[in-house]
């Protein structure tokens, strides 16, 4: 008990609370800015937090990490542009809700779901860090490959009922993911001799183009003078009512579960978890047809799931000393310089520090939640700007944000080109979700498959119970729904044939 008291007690220092406040402000800001990621903000902040003591320094960095995962939801919901990759799945239903005049509800529900997800992840960290991190070690290339295959089955889910077109979009994404140096031999593929492409298509530029820029270009193309295309002046009610809460209950549970697991698996983060949580909630929902068209369940599941990964990433980082995601990789660098060596011995030597870290993140969650709810009305005012201001702001802010990722004009070009590709997809009714899914999972799928084969041939995959289990689940996910539909049709036919009395 005493490490808990000591760990949490250490946070009562006003300096630390001040640091949390500063971190929350910075995190929200960079999160909301498309292009600027939490990794970049933490990396730049760490250059001056190194001068601080460990706890205040950690307070700044961890709070940026937590609160940027609140801030990034705002542009996802209001202008269809994910602030960071973690909010890709938020756009699926969030933007649709906003267009239906429910922007207020979408913003608040998203904030509550994000807060709930973060807390679940942190509870996992506090009660079961060591055993969970051991589980993570079982995820080698074979298991990762099987997990990614399961992820690829989601392409059907995010196709929104247009399966062939959705799968084509998925193949496009996978091909884009194949651009760059081969993961095993280093052979350049589809790079056309451009050095920037040898690391692959810049991911953040691609998602901003496909979602945000494509949406703006479409509005520019279709807007008529004197005819209001954008109905987002209506925010609807802000707080979820009793019925909304009941609707949110199941996706909150599903999202927590999915996010918790994905967070612990190394090298997977909020972007994948958000989509996975969204798709799983769709599978168990009573109204799966509404997903992607402004479903409260959808946005709740996506945000719960993507934020539940935070605790998992911190768990892997602290309990194994191996970074759970790119933000934690940067943070390990700072911790080591402060003389904190993450790893199993941290839990025996400095258990109070683990609780302090969890405590900082809990306070940060509360601060971010409060800030999200209070400040929403101000942010939402942005949309009351006339469309010519809004277009200019989104276009230029996305360009500058994308440029800032690696200070390269090439990324901005990729963003604009994919914006045009996204416009094409939109005009011809092809869902953009599978493209992004393919882009995220493509290199993971190929890299891990080939790594697994290098290590032990096909037997490496077939002898792993986790991998085989995941592959079977993927098969079920593929075959299940059509079989169920067929059965239902046959039953319906029978019911028709039996004359009604």
């Amino acid at each position, binding site marked *: 008990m005493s490490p808990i008291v000591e760990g949490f007690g250490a946070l009562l220092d006003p300096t630390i609370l001040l640091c949390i406040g500063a971190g929350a402000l910075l995190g929200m800001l960079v999160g909301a800015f498309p292009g600027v990621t939490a990794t970049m903000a933490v990396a730049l902040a760490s250059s001056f937090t190194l001068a601080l003591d460990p706890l205040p320094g950690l307070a700044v960095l961890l709070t940026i990490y937590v609160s940027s995962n609140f801030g990034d939801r705002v542009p996802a919901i209001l202008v269809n542009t994910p602030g960071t990759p973690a909010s890709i799945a938020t756009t699926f239903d969030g933007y649709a809700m906003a267009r239906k005049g429910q922007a207020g509800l979408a913003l608040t529900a998203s904030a509550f779901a994000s807060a709930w997800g973060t807390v679940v992840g942190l509870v996992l960290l506090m009660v079961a860090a060591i055993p969970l991190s051991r589980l993570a070690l079982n995820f080698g290339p074979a298991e990762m490959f099987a997990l990614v295959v399961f992820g690829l089955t989601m392409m059907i889910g995010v196709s929104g009922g247009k399966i062939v077109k959705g799968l084509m979009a998925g193949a496009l994404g996978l091909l884009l993911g194949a651009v760059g140096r081969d993961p095993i031999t280093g052979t350049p593929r589809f790079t056309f001799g451009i050095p920037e492409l040898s690391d692959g298509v810049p991911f953040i530029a691609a998602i901003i183009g496909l979602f945000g820029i494509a949406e703006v270009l479409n509005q520019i193309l279709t807007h008529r003078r004197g005819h209001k295309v954008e109905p987002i002046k209506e925010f609807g009610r802000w707080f979820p009512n009793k019925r909304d809460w009941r609707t949110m209950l199941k996706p909150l549970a599903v999202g927590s579960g999915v996010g918790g697991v994905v967070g612990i698996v190394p090298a997977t983060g909020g972007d994948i978890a958000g989509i996975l949580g969204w798709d799983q909630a769709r599978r168990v929902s009573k109204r799966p047809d509404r997903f992607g068209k402004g479903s409260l369940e959808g946005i709740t599941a996506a945000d719960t799931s993507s934020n539940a990964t935070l605790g998992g990433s911190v768990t892997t980082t602290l309990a194994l000393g191996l970074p759970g995601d790119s933000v934690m990789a940067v943070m390990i660098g700072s911790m080591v310089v402060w003389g904190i060596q993450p790893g199993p011995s941290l839990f025996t030597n400095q258990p109070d520090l683990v609780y302090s870290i969890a405590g900082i993140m809990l306070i940060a969650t509360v601060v971010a939640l409060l800030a999200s709810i209070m400040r929403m009305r101000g942010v939402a005012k942005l949309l009351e700007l006339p469309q010519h201001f809004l277009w200019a702001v989104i276009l230029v802010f996305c360009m500058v944000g994308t440029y800032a990722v690696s200070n390269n004009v090439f990324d901005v070009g990729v963003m604009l080109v994919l914006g045009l590709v996204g416009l094409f997809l939109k005009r011809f009714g092809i869902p953009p979700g599978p493209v992004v899914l393919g882009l995220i999972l493509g290199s993971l799928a190929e890299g891990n498959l080939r790594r697994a084969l290098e*290590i032990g041939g096909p037997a490496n995959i077939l002898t792993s119970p986790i991998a085989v289990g995941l592959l079977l689940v993927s098969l079920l996910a593929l075959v299940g729904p059509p079989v169920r539909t067929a059965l239902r049709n046959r039953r319906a036919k029978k019911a028709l044939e039996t004359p009604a009395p």
Partner: protein
Amino acid sequence: MRPTFFKLAAVATGAVLLTAGCADRGGVTEDSSEYPSEDVTLVVPYDAGGASDLAARTLAAEMEETLGQSIIVENRSGGAGSVGLEYLAGRPADGYTIGYLPVETVMLGHQGYDVDPADYDLIGQMVSVPATVAVPADSPYETLDDLVEAAKEDPGSITVSNSGAGSIWEAATTELGNATGSEFKPVPFDGGAPAVTAAVGGQVDAVVAGISETAPSHSEGQLRVLAVFDSEPSESLPDVQTAAEQGVDVTIGGWGGIGAPAGLPEDVLQKLEEAFAAAADSEEFTTIISDSGNIPVNVPAAEYAQFVEDEHKRFGELLGNQD
């Protein structure tokens, strides 16, 4: 809302006009004896937050004190570092743009990128990251010799993870095989951390990675580092012998130094070398680098230039088949 908006706007307009007025930075044809009379930019060819970025930023903060001007770190990542290195090579040789040169400076040219160490004036080397080879804690291999013998017995059966295709650690694996007449199977991962994780989890037989990546897991008892590929034992792994001590004469690893576009005026180069030497010797710099698990060094320009030339030749032979 309205009045504040306009007040803000008025202030902002003033600010922009003011800054735009003094924005004309180009076309400096000043006497180089007054160097440095404005901010210096330090290009880092990787994203902010990595070990290279930390080393560069720490050094930059110390060099500012001698130069008396701000050093602004610019991260220009992409193309395995080639984007930033090519950018640096194309900047004017006036001392106002310098850059962090990693070991990839001598490797990328042999891997199809347009990077040549001759394009840079070398100022000094400040960090060294010797390669290590480590096995899972429960591995049957107790010494480097055990591992090499196993690889000799069944060539290509010993899997060794590394941080990526074409990385220095993959090259180190090949070099170890060449030097011992054995054959390992390199398994490239997507970054150093997943490669070490794979070894901790027992998915591969061994991992070759930088000392700062394996030493923490070694002291936690998750990995056993078998050898350090350096000329002397490391402070962070006092119980581990060097490869040479175990009869395998291989020294290889990552390193980082500072360079500038080739053709710097002599007096500018000298000022930079002085600032570099003072910074690399400073306690602030050496403490942060040793704490992060790497080895701070202070190699002067001439010696560093010779070293880079040797390394360039060496990797040409090692990576030659990839051209």
